[in-house]
């Protein structure tokens, strides 16, 4: 059976790398935390992995706008082999591999032009900027998955309850045309909603004022997923803010957290693709 390998980027203020690695391990994959500079130095090759992960954090303290400094580094600075990290990432995506960016990681993906990338030019088409509340907030929100989204990460998920922890999570698209395209192509894979699953633009259900109440985006293939909420913060039932009562109501409740589902999904998907022989051997 194939061992699914996840690489988790860290350094420069990224700070959710450990729970991200734990998520993949719990989902049955191998997870390596790698400092970004190891990739620039040519010591680590991302193509040896199946899933490239950008965890949450405060890279460069959100200076110049969240994710901006590291996005610039990945876009413009040359690796030892003379290519930029962005061009390595494009090759990675072209070989039908997967990328997940959460919170600060989503901000990188957007600012590098990898999401939604409708025009396939790696130009920035949307941004994630300051919440309408003008505050950083840590709160749990309900999310509705777009049933038409292609991404394997969200397979089988209808609604999910996860924490958001950000000050710059409001999604703004560059223009109406892009907004229409995102909706038409079902790239808005996750929306803020109420407890019953109705998409909501009310604060605090939509915690930041995002356009389209959008909490997550994919590219057209569904292989790249970026999202503001933190599935890696809900790996165990005991992360849930009301776990005692859930347990009381259902003594047979699983001790796994719902956030783990995304990681299990992608690991299963890759294993299945491998069986079907559709992935290139790394």
């Amino acid at each position, binding site marked *: 059976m194939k061992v699914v390998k996840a690489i988790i980027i860290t350094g420069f203020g990224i*700070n959710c790398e450990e729970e991200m690695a734990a998520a993949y391990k719990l989902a049955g994959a191998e997870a390596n935390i790698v400092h970004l500079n190891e990739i620039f*130095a040519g010591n680590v090759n991302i193509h040896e992995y199946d899933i490239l992960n950008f965890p949450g954090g405060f890279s460069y303290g959100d200076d*110049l706008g969240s994710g901006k*400094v590291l996005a610039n580094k990945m876009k413009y600075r040359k690796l030892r082999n003379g290519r930029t990290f962005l061009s390595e990432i494009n090759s990675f995506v072209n070989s039908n591999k997967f990328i997940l960016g959460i919170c600060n990681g989503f901000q990188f993906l957007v600012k590098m032009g990898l999401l939604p990338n409708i025009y396939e030019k790696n130009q*920035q088409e*949307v941004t994630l900027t300051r919440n309408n509340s003008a505050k950083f907030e840590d709160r749990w929100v309900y999310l509705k998955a777009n049933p038409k989204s292609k991404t394997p990460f969200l397979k089988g998920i209808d609604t999910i309850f996860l924490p958001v*922890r950000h000050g710059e999570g409001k999604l703004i698209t560059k223009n109406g045309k892009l907004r229409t395209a995102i909706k038409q192509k079902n790239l808005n894979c996750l929306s803020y909603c109420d407890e019953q699953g109705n998409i909501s633009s009310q604060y605090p259900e939509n915690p930041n004022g995002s356009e389209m109440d959008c909490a997550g985006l994919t590219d057209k293939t569904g292989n790249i997923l970026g999202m503001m909420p933190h599935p*890696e913060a809900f790996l165990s039932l005991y992360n849930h803010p009301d776990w005692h009562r859930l347990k009381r109501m259902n003594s047979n409740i699983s001790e796994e957290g719902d956030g783990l589902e995304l990681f299990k999904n992608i690991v299963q998907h890759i294993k299945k693709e491998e069986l079907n022989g559709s992935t290139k051997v790394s």
Partner: protein
Amino acid sequence: MKNQIEIVLKDGIRDVEAEKVASEAKNFLKIDTGEMKTGKIYNITYDLNKKEVIEFAEKGLKDEVINEVYINELYKNSKFKSFILVAKFPGVTDDEGFSAQKTLIDILGKKLDTSTQHIYTDKIYYIENKLPKEDLKLIAEKLLGNKLIHHLEYGKFTGSIDYVPEVKIDSSERVKIIDINLSDEELQQLSKSMLLSLNLEEMRAIKYYYLDQKTQKKRQQATLSLQPTDCELEVIAQTWSEHCKHKEFAATIKYVNHETGEIEEIDSLFKTYIKRSTEIIQKRLQKAGNNWLLKVFNDNAGVVKIDDNSVFVWKVETHNSPSTIDPYGGAITGILGNNRDPLGTGIGGGKLLFNTNVLCFGPPDYDKPLLAGQLHPKRIFEGVRHGIEDGGNKSGIPTVNGSIIFDERYSGKPLVYCGTGGVMPTKYAGVNSWEKNISAGDLIVMAGGRVGKDGIHGATFSSAEIDENSPQSAVQIGSPITQKLLSDFLQEAARKGLIKCSTDNGAGGLSSSVGELATICGGAVVNLEKVPLKYPNLKPWEIFISESQERMTLVVQQKKLAELKKLAAAREVELSNIGIFTNHGFLNVKYENETIAFLNMHFLHEGVPKKYMEAEWEPLNLCEPKLEPKLNYNLILEKLMGSLNICSRENVIRQYDHEVKGKTVVKPLMGDDGKAPQDAAVMRLNFDSNQGIAISNGIIPRYGDIDAYHMSAGAFDEAIRQIISVGGKLPDLNDRNNRFWTVNDNFCVPDSYYDPQKNPDGKQKLAKLVQMNKALFDMATFYNIPMTSGKDSMKNDFKAGDVKISIPPTILYSMVAKIEDVRTTTTSNFKQQGDLIYQVGKTYNELGGSEFYKLIGELGKNVPKVRMVEAKRLYEIMMQANEKNLLESAHDISDGGLAVALVESAFTNGVGIAISLPDYSELSYTAQLFSESHSRFVVSVKPENREKFEQLFQTNCHYLGKVTSNEQVKITGKKKILIDLPICKLKKTWDEGLNR
């Protein structure tokens, strides 16, 4: 040649920051700004051509979707009639400028110096209304900037900003020789003029050291002046400072208690009560063959054993003075500085698991005229909160536990307690991680940020000494990103076995870090010219005592240096080898081969004369108030729920990331709508076991107005019972699973040194401190709960002219206890309707110092007392109840008494409570509802467990009533309804309590 880039939001993009400022100006300052707009200005002093500047602006700074860029011209729009510029003074931390430099070299692919500053950022605010200068000044100084660190411009905007805060210092003489052979009066004058903060006796000790023939002989041999250098006096002053040597906790105290008639002489509060209590517990543990107490008091943080593979490191500090003058900077350097304590314990490089913060402020609706230099409590609150938010969130450390206490006496000086816990592996490359070993020949390596004038002499520098081109030094702003890089690097280096040990550079800078490390091996030689600087022309003594943040001193073996340097370069952390440890018995500081300081280590660390202080306790003449016969309990409860010390902290808590790392199991707020406040935080330690810890804090300063002993004992009990409440277990000498408890004690007191003119009630204040220490000793040794580290802050008075605002003597106990299985913990909120509600523990007529009395403007006399024996028995029963899964919820009873605890427990959607109070002849309903007697809980129990529960608790529980489904709080006495209110009403009052 300066280039300037401005970034603004495109038209039509909501400027939330501008909206926030406009609304604060309206609400707080009553100034109508009209529409506002913000801009960010980057001033660039690198030599760049036009094409490069454009490329940098367009690619590096602009957000395609929302920004517009202006190059070498600024945004101007006739719609905006006024502007305010907030720039930084020279030398003030400008992280954004440094981040921009990193991006610049990535984009241009150019090699430029990014370790000193060449990009300076400003904020500009455009204001629609034409406001008078006074209004703009108010907005600039009260909302946007702090005149101690910011250069502020305002008025009508001309379209250009020329200010660039480059640091320029003239070079001057390197070292000064100072005549110490002076009269007493002159010695005192010298201490004052050099800002040494040493008293006459200490100055005399220094004088005699230099006059001593042995000293003179040594100095002659080393071809040094017989008189001290400026650097030497600075080093001695730093080492002997209250901050470093805790002279008042080490003093001999004559304690006279007129209430009991006892007179005693106490040889050091620290040794007698704090250290001795831990030593007694340590002996008991050792006798029982239990060795989880690994390191106490003699390092940056205490260390206890978790299991064979890992140890827990934990420290709580205060940062009061800096937070008084710049709340944001004070708090962020407080929390980042405190992070470096567990990080620099033993070998160092622990993984930081959580932060805590306990804050004491004046009331946000404080309406007395402000004294010179005094900031409004609301402003201090917001600044400190923001500092803690950035310090924790940006470092990826969850802020899981804390308290906020309001009392008018904190309006001058706030208290800012910052705590950090971390985990280290038991061994790094085969060596015990918590030990510090240094041999002569090991290298002194400085890592992290560069050195500037920051924090020289700490807060004693007055604002008057800051001028246009002098780097600011009174106030420091932390740089979370610099520290994050340093901390990631240190963890990696320690795991690879590349460092022998490490320590923090905090107060006293290198002087203190190297000076203290050198005591382990017996000496050091430092070459100051090797220390990397933020800007040129610092004097050697300034380099040595600068408190520039985000630096650590590492001890490195010669053979490991190359590999360590390689790792540092790969992680973009600056590293410099600045000297070598010796065993010669001297601290030898050089600058380009010239000796700047040459001090005997023994004199430096043991030479400070012992202080003598007097404490005298006169009993207070207090009495219980006469209450109205018919109190409106509905009204009282509603007011209590909205009162400052009880109401919701949700707005603050949600701005702290309390669950990054994914290990927080009991968060500060829990329940189906995330409103229910919890007693202690619970965290798991890793992802593959259920082992964890509970974290709590006890602090009740207002009880000290009646009795300082019971205030201290009560705070200790509060911290214990919060941990019991979530399901923790008391220490057991015979337990074999390292069931550790570890406490940081933090004393903050007003000046307690008696002076007939300046501090006439000093003896009484010191007596309170003695009593607080006695309680600490009694509680710790009774429960076997040891202090492992702590801190005292002795001069918490705010003075302006003849007016002095002094804090009440305050003690904070921060506790951490091991939890074997986090899945067995409990939360405070009721879980299901139909569950039975009990009070556990006994209520006494103890309304003294209560929130209820405060509400009616009384103090009272009957302060809550801790009854240790009964409390311990009760906690043991709670532990059994927990083991047997009998508790559906548990909430400790504290501020506001039973009534408030019941309402808080009912913060679950859809529940209410129906309670009937027993009719005691000796205890009024008022006391039953609002007395704050210690060691009590509100718990809920499944109906089917009633018998088991009552059998276990016997007379220690009192049935109160049931959880209902009518969302109503109904409390009845024998014949009448006492309280009948909808929960939503109480919740709303509670939610909005801080909106004032």
